[in-house]
């Protein structure tokens, strides 16, 4: 039992990311309002970013910017254990950008849909399409 609890606690970040991701996924599938779906989509994406950032965390390490980057001791020896893994951060910068780009496109589409049907509720739009 204590094992289980300690696993749960030790990896709590991962549980949070799964929770957030599922919240987002559920919103994308089950929500009726198009903008709500887009909000869900963004939560979904940020959850994955949270997951990646969690990979990079390293106990007892600091942010991945080298101290003594300039000045007289610019070339002193760097130990990998002192710094957080920078690679996930780099990847996630890209992912954030992709997220905002997708958001822009999705909103543009939502506006066009609104112009066509004068509503953002999916069921109302489908009803209008069926009427035609």
């Amino acid at each position, binding site marked *: 039992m204590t094992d289980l609890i300690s696993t749960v606690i030790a990896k709590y970040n991962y549980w949070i990311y799964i929770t957030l991701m599922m*919240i987002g996924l559920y919103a994308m599938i089950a929500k009726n309002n198009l903008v709500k779906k887009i*909000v869900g989509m963004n*939560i979904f994406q940020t959850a994955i970013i949270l997951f990646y950032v969690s990979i990079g965390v390293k106990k007892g390490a600091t942010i991945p910017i080298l101290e003594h980057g300039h000045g007289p001791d610019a070339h002193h020896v760097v130990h990998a254990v002192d710094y957080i893994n920078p690679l996930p951060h780099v990847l996630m*910068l890209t992912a954030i950008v992709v997220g905002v780009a997708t958001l822009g496109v999705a909103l543009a589409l939502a506006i066009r849909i*609104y112009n066509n049907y004068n509503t953002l*509720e999916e069921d109302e739009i489908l009803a209008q399409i069926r009427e035609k």
Partner: protein
Amino acid sequence: MIWPIDLAILTLVVVAAIGALMVKDLLGASVLFGAYSFMMCLLWSIMGAVDVAFTEASVGAGVSTVFFVAAVFRTSRRTRD
């Protein structure tokens, strides 16, 4: 890292996410989404991902929210879910 703050932020993230999806007003949802992004950004800076946090602060909490507000302004605030 101070665990009570960490825990508080984690809770807030989830609450903000659920809140953004629950409120019946899209403008409110946009603002709550901004709050969610900002909490996320705090979380990441706690984890030492300063660049990611910086980006999220400017993009997620900043520009994304503005886009949402702009889009909601151009469409409608009303929603049923």
